[in-house]
């Protein structure tokens, strides 16, 4: 069965690690028959500031990302087909993504199997000018292919479980041009110099997620999910998430989430290389460093018009707040600490920061 028609108006804010990002989005989903529905989404992110490793080599960034997507669903008998296209545009980065998938209900609709394929082509650039007067140098392309499989299974009348598998393979320019490596250099006062990251031009990753959701003896739900990730760059990561959902009358739904994430570093990552050109591949992107993060989130949904109004069957507003604590195991804060305040290269304190994420949205069901 196709999901209900709905429209969402969404606002978000992310603050943390020197970044200030606000997002605005509109999503509309409309059925044109019992078999056919269309969904459109427009998202705009406005970024100011820059993360700590970007700031170590470049000026403060002001940028925006506009993402448009269109998705079509078609159901025939027990099979649902989806085709979607997404375009994401920043001044220095353009991405086009196409996704196809099909879901098949079987065994008395207790089992749903999903198979999907996603392909994207990205154009990667670098702004060598200022935020207000950009000079974009287009550096190259990156292509990506993703193969997805999923199984969702009703176990009992109170329990549903699922498994998702996704293999992604990338090729092309995969490094972030704004991030740099650093290497020991006794010829300069700082004791280190910055250099260009060099990544392999291929990357393949595999992620498997298992999850289960249980309807409690009173009207509430608890879920758990675990994801294991590994890639050809040597990163292994574990994610575990717990979620509890508690409705109160027909007007409120409260939700609490806890998420823990950990990863080791990529094989060619180092916070400080011993000398210039010391390896064939070199990275100091904080995403490839050993790290952990913990998220604590709360959400409330208020059905301010549970019986509907005008053409709408129901209307809700949601407020979601998350606190994410990032800690890095081998990524040092060279923005705040240096030899000038007593920290020789490689002895600076490890980096970490807390981020606050707010989301407010209105959902209209029609």
């Amino acid at each position, binding site marked *: 069965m196709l999901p209900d028609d709905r429209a969402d108006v969404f606002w978000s804010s992310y603050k943390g690690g020197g970044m200030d990002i606000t997002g605005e989005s509109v999503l509309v989903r409309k059925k044109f028959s019992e078999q056919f529905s269309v969904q459109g989404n427009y*998202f705009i992110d406005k970024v100011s500031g820059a993360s700590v490793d970007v700031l170590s080599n470049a000026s403060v960034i002001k940028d925006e990302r506009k993402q448009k997507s269109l998705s079509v669903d078609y159901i025939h008998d027990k099979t649902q087909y989806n085709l979607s296209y997404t375009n994401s545009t920043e001044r220095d980065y353009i991405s086009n993504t196409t996704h196809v998938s099909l879901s098949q209900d079987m065994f008395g609709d207790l089992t749903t199997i999903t198979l999907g394929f996603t392909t994207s082509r990205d154009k990667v650039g670098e702004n060598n000018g200022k935020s207000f007067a950009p000079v974009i140098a287009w550096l190259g392309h990156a292509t990506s292919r993703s193969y997805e499989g999923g199984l969702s299974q009703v176990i009992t009348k109170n329990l*549903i479980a699922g498994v998702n598998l996704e293999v992604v393979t990338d090729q092309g320019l995969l490094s972030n041009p704004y991030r740099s490596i650093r290497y020991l250099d006794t010829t300069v006062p700082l004791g280190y110099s910055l250099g260009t990251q060099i990544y392999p031009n291929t990357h393949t990753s595999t992620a498997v997620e298992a999850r289960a959701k249980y*309807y409690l003896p009173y009207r509430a*739900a608890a879920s758990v999910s675990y994801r294991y990730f590994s890639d050809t760059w040597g*990163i292994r990561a574990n994610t575990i998430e717990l979620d509890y959902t508690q409705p109160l009358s027909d007007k409120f739904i409260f939700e609490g989430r806890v998420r823990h994430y950990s990863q080791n570093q990529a094989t060619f990552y180092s916070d400080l290389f011993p000398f210039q050109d010391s390896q064939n591949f070199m990275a100091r992107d904080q*995403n490839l460093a050993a790290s952990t993060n913990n998220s604590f989130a709360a959400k409330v949904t208020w059905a301010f018009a549970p019986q509907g109004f005008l053409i709408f069957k129901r209307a809700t507003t949601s407020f*979601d707040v998350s606190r994410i604590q990032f800690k890095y195991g081998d990524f040092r804060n060279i923005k705040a600490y240096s030899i000038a305040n007593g920290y020789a290269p490689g002895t600076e304190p490890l980096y970490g920061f807390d981020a606050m994420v707010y989301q407010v*949205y209105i959902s209209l069901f029609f």
Partner: protein
Amino acid sequence: MHTALKLAVVGAGLLIGACSNIQPWVKPYERDRLADPIMSWERDAISGAYLDHIYESREGSRGATGTAGGGCGCN
């Protein structure tokens, strides 16, 4: 034919035979709790996609979360 291959063929046959006899053990009229919106994997797609993008832009891992996105998000 190798023993392993024979076992695989027999196993596949048993599996197909077994599946054809599976009866839904949770009847349609017993699925009211599973149909409650609080039991959906993702109640609000717009929020789920946003949170996935936040994590994917700041972590070394990606995928298998059931949503697709785009963009660099690398700043």
